């Protein structure tokens, strides 16, 4: 069974962490992943940096720009991850925009991911219709789960459609916003979380965007299976580099 599916069966709320590969230093990738696992994180999203990250706010944009300046490329990332499965067991997902994957070659990219032991992909600008038509068979061949997003504006009908195509979890974007908006969750979000929970979807949901501390983590995981932290963790990396990752994770989960 795919590590993601296995993880989702555990009887606990999951914490997933996103970071941009190649940031703050080019060679931090493996250190960050190992530290996150040691700190008790359940799942990791490795961001493949892109020059034009449409769905991201200033924090992830800046980390992407810096990572590219540092020399991060698809090949470099794959080299860094070559032996990752010798030391890391939790699910690893690559999150990246479609153009770099397209240039690498979707099949070649998928094959490389499978060799390394990547479990899934999140490609925000690959629409579900195009995925179904052109890439589903390739991803499935290499046992990669493709994770789709829903937002508060996604219609019920479309959510059902996304649920039917998904196999893993649904990435539930917390609010109408790019990443990194950390103004907390209000009534509107809570209701949206409830509404989705009541739909009793086949796939569990993991909430992302706007989770930055223990309070927002608990709010998000009240109904959902887990939550994803991105920008807030990147801010931590900006301040402390790869130091103090366990302390950071501890104050999120308070476990």
């Amino acid at each position, binding site marked *: 069974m795919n590590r993601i599916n296995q993880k989702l069966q555990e009887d606990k709320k999951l914490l997933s962490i996103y970071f941009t590969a190649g940031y703050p230093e080019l060679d931090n990738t493996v250190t960050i992943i190992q530290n996150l696992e040691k700190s008790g994180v359940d799942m990791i999203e490795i961001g493949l940096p*892109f*020059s*034009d*990250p*449409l*769905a*991201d*706010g*200033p924090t992830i*944009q*800046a980390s992407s*720009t810096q990572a*590219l300046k540092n020399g991060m*490329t*698809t*090949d470099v990332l794959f080299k860094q991850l070559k032996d990752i499965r010798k030391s890391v067991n939790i699910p690893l997902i690559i999150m990246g*925009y*479609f*153009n*770099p*994957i*397209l*240039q*690498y070659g979707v099949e070649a990219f998928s094959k490389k991911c499978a060799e390394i032991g990547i479990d899934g992909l999140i490609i*925000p*600008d*690959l*629409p*579900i219709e*195009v995925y179904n038509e052109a890439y589903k068979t390739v991803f499935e061949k290499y046992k990669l789960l493709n994770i*789709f*997003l*829903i*937002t508060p*504006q*996604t*219609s019920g009908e*479309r959510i059902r459609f996304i649920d039917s195509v998904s196999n893993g979890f649904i990435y539930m*974007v917390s609010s*109408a*916003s*790019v990443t990194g*908006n950390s103004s907390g969750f209000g009534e509107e979000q809570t209701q949206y979380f409830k509404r989705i929970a009541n739909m009793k979807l086949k796939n569990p949901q993991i909430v992302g965007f706007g989770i930055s501390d223990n309070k927002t983590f608990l709010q998000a995981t009240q109904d959902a299976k887990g939550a994803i932290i991105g920008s807030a963790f990147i801010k931590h990396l900006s301040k402390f580099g790869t130091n103090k990752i366990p302390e950071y994770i501890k104050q999120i989960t308070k476990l």
Partner: protein
Amino acid sequence: MSYNINNKGYYGEFGGAFIPEMLYPNVEELRQNYLKVMAEPEFQKEFDKLLKDYVGRPSPLYFAKRLSAKYNTKIYLKREDLNHTGAHKINNTIGQILMAKRLGKQRIIAETGAGQHGVATATVCALMGLECIVYMGEIDIARQAPNVARMKMLGATVIPAVSGSKTLKDATNEAIRDWINNPVDTHYIIGSVVGPHPYPDMVARFQAVVSKEIQWQLKEQEGKTKPDYVIACVGGGSNAAGAYYHFLEDTNVKLIAAEAAGKGIQSGESAATSVLGNEGIIHGSKSLLMQTKDGQITEPYSISAGLDYPGIGPMHAHLYKTGRAEFISITDDEAMKAGLELCKLEGIIPAIESSHALAIFEQKTFKPNDVVVLSLSGRGDKDLETYINYFNL
């Protein structure tokens, strides 16, 4: 073979809507409504009336006698430079502001490079009393001060794009992010035939008035509705799309696209996408774009801010790939020379974008009886400082 869009939103293999799910409802709302709205008689009436009374259409189709004599062919200039706000851009913004109103939107966002599309958007927002926010790269704000001032006078808020390379492509990213953050009340007026479907088609249809007029104007002057050639510059490609539109399927009409070669194709400072680019995704559309081998979008260069874009619209990618249009790269120097020549021969100061189209006559020989229509997409007022510095005026 068709050169127009198919029912899935593609021109051949190019186009589509490669957008994050956050944008899906906005883009889908537009996709489901744009053709219906544009087909409403009331909409058409209002659009036509504004184009006539406010923009000043039809724009003249002017037989350029001295230019024709110099190049020994028959050259007609389609005078988009005489439109209100000085370029073809306003045809699209008038159309889109009416669309936004039909869809009940109260807030308008736009991106701009040189500021021409920003000014055209700010203008129609003032006209309709809608809030207007224009994203513009920090670097472009510094080098296009007069247009920034114009937008402000027209009541728009100009927000600097400080991400990435701080120019047009980043301003476009910022506008898209704004739309993600404001999915319900906001309409995004894209400035060219780029972006996710249905934008390229919608913008092309609003600009199509240009070739529609060319047909009857040519009939009046030449006794036939078809030219032998249509020439236009291509940044994203909206003035070209408008000038080509009604001739797309008629291969007797040859299409020529002038691209900005900047300081030369091999100089590393160029915007000639058809030569330097390859297939990929830019701003939600599959097209040709300039990128590294890793798929990172690169920063283009042209002396003309309106052509300084690392991609071309999907229609043009298809026209290039199929050979339907001939793409010719024009350097800064060639464009500047051609611009000055038009001043001296015809008393018209062109936008530097349009000067790229004019430079085609030095590159390609036409027959004496060929009827060549050139899209003079804009006037040179906005470029005076560049002309002054370049020619030491």
